[in-house]
């Protein structure tokens, strides 16, 4: 039997001002009806470009398809005319995108967007009137698990949560019963428990409809349970393809090996360096915000009654889903967010209520690493300026010694000294995060609060940065609060873990102890939802 989609020697190039970029270079794959192909690769690997080129969704120029064929049911998608392509889109091949927050039109109701493929069907004979289309849409909304779907039909996207929006996207993709569903990182923007639900849903719908699925992801764990075949891409080139089990258990390719090895797994391997002395004591801390955006003044209780201690020398993990208040708690400890009630004590001195001027010497001893190395570094300052600023401000270096100290810092974080005069945009994401880490340790702090320091990074880079952090903690005798939504990362790096949910610290314990014996239901669900790069256990979990 011929495959439903057969892509051969696909080449997509971007003709940019900085020269030619071979985004996809000679990639071939095929999918049969009812089968799931996962395309896995790090950012810039060309996995999304591959799929966008199938539906002619790339901006041309700069993109140009240079060669290859993509036979869908006997017709070449790459050479068909615009009308024919419109016919394929939505009707035969549907797509789900990464970010459900931005992929739905905020100006139209969800219902209106759902019925569009039906009422404006490219095939005039198959167009439906609004009433029929609405019934069909409501039926599908029920199927993807939207409660109260009749009423929700007239809601706008902003009235849905991220997970619910992704369900709407899935319903929209399925409304014309496509034969191929392309999912472009459909769960990357979602919390881990929601991710598990969406993966379940996609698997379930695929089974009931016998539709072919192409699932794009950077996360091998996510695809382990749902993929029949895997294609691994790197820099536009197909590194390896084959059965899921073969790729995961018997890979012959070095790059795939590296991807699998980079996934943080298991417990922290370094010793717990915690001393008995408490460096930070937080008691009954409350951070409330006034939210003026709604019709009424709304009090957002971002942190509610948080009490915790951080021992000198330990790495304390803080996990929670988006909106749980974990970042606010971190910033409140550093007095970067205004606290409403409670106290924060650092090395025996109470910081809450201190004037900003008095806080300055304390700031030297507590530093922060932020999530997004693209946004947190000043684009108009060179690496040297970024690293020299805290040194000079806190009087750690003077004009004569600053260059030497900056060079020392760059050695510490693994950046070549020759890059000192470069600007942030000249570095990759991982290198930028190294700069940010260098800036944080420049003042020789005792406490570092790391707010999702690796979540914007690719998995191989993430592994390197995590090891760098562990090494620096050891070498500089640091204490760290490590905030992350990624439980595997937290397990890999921390000695002790706090779990935060809706602004409240609900559970804490030594990392391995907590993993083995979670007490709260929420923690149990959180741990259960972590996708593992092990197809056998993942399949068992999805089918249960």
């Amino acid at each position, binding site marked *: 039997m011929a495959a439903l989609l057969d892509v051969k020697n696909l080449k997509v190039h971007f003709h940019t001002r900085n020269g030619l970029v071979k985004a996809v270079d000679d990639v071939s794959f095929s999918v049969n009806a009812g089968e799931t192909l996962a395309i896995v690769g790090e950012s810039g690997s060309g996995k999304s470009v591959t799929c966008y080129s199938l539906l002619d969704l790339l901006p041309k120029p700069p993109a140009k398809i240079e060669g290859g064929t993509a036979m869908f049911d006997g017709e070449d998608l790459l050479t068909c005319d615009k009308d024919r392509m419109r*016919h394929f889109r939505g009707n035969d091949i*549907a797509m789900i995108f990464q970010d459900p927050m931005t992929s739905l039109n905020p*100006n139209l109701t969800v219902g209106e967007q759902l019925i569009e493929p039906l009422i404006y069907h490219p095939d005039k004979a198959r167009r439906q009137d609004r009433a029929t289309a609405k019934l069909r849409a409501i039926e599908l909304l029920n199927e993807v698990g939207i409660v109260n779907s009749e009423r929700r039909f007239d809601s706008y996207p902003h009235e849905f949560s991220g997970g619910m929006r992704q369900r709407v996207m899935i319903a929209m993709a399925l409304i014309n019963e496509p034969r191929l569903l392309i999912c472009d990182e459909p769960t990357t923007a979602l919390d881990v428990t929601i991710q598990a639900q969406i993966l379940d849903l996609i698997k379930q719908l695929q089974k009931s409809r016998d539709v072919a699925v192409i699932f794009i992801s950077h996360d091998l764990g996510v695809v382990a349970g749902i993929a029949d075949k895997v294609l691994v891409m790197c820099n536009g080139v197909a590194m390896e393809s084959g059965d899921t089990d073969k790729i995961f258990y018997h890979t012959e390719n070095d790059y795939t090996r590296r991807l699998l090895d980079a996934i943080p797994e298991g417990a922290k391997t370094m010793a717990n360096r915690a001393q008995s002395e408490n460096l930070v004591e937080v008691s009954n801390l409350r951070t409330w915000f006034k939210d003026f955006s709604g019709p*009424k003044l709304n009090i957002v209780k971002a942190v509610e009654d948080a009490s915790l201690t951080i021992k000198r020398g330990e790495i304390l993990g803080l996990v929670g889903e988006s909106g749980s208040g974990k970042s606010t708690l971190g910033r409140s400890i550093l007095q970067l967010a205004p606290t409403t009630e409670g106290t924060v004590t650092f090395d025996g001195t109470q910081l809450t209520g201190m004037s900003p001027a008095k806080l300055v010497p304390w700031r030297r001893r507590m530093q922060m690493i932020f999530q997004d190395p693209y946004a947190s570094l000043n684009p108009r300052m060179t690496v040297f300026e970024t690293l020299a600023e805290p040194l000079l401000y806190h009087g750690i270096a003077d004009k004569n010694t600053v260059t030497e100290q900056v060079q020392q810092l760059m050695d510490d974080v693994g950046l070549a000294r020759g890059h000192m005069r470069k600007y942030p945009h000249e570095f990759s994401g991982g290198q930028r995060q190294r700069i940010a880490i260098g800036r944080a340790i420049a003042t020789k702090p005792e406490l570092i609060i790391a707010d999702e320091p690796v979540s914007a990074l690719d998995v191989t880079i993430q592994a390197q940065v995590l090891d760098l952090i562990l090494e620096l903690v050891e070498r500089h005798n640091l204490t760290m609060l490590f905030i992350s939504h990624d439980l595997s990362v937290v397990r890999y790096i921390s000695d002790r873990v706090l779990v935060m949910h809706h602004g409240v610290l609900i559970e804490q314990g030594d990392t391995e102890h907590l993993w083995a014996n979670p007490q709260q239901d929420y923690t149990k669900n959180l741990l259960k939802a972590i996708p593992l790069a092990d197809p056998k256990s993942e399949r068992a979990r999805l089918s249960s």
Partner: protein
Amino acid sequence: MLRFALGRLLQAIPVLLVVITMTFMLVHSAPGGPFSADKAVPEEVLEALEAQYNLDQPLWQQYISYLGDVLQGDMGPSFKYPGRSVNELILSGLGTTAELGMYAMMVAIFIGVIAGVTASMRPNTAQDYVPMTAAMIGICMPSFLLGPLLVLIFGIHLEWLPVSGWNQIPGDKILPAITLGTGYAAYIARLSRGGMLEVLSQDYIRTARAKGLSEFLIISKHALRGGLIPVVAFLGPAFAGLLGGSFVVETIYQIPGLGRFYVQAAFNRDYTMILGTTVFFATLIILFNLLSDMLAVWLNPKLRQQVRGE
């Protein structure tokens, strides 16, 4: 929505007060007076005139009594048109100016939005460069140059349209409307191009394409609403600007509108007339800004619900 509007109107009170005070101080500190020009007037007559218009009183007293009158909606008598009040004069010109402004606005929106949207559909191609170059020229071209140019071409050379007048010969409103509207059309074209480009790069436009919608639907249904928000925000100030800036066009085409009074009043040191027209235009600007803000809120479902929730 009502509370939102009322709140904004309350904010307008201090703004208007500042406008009145500043204008009052400025006109009274300008050299000369309403009766100092023209031929020499005997001292007694001048004194009598000044007494009649309360100009002999201390400045602060004049200011207080003027404020009192304005509060009651009375802008006082004109100094140069004896026996006629400022209210009367403004009303007499307002209809014509408003009509001219409205036509100019229609020209501006129609040409501007079409040019901007066309340009945004194929950025950095001829389809973009041609309308945008035209828009650049339109912005640079002052109406006192464009007006005579249009008159020369369409009125005198081709003899298609009347060269001046208002409501006298059929078609005499076309050239003034185009002259006044062109600059705004050019501005709207640039705004709508920018807004559309922004929206067309959004993820949800890609979603709409992936659904198989036609390019026409994508533009008209998914993109226009968001893409024209900058234009909507500009409409309020633009309309007020059209009314206020119409005096050049009114002078070129001999139109008996409001703009003429405004300029003449300044030359004549017609204190009450200057103040009256200024306050009137300031009120219009505030009102039209409010209207366009309300329209922008209404276009955004999220804001609409928040405002309605009050």
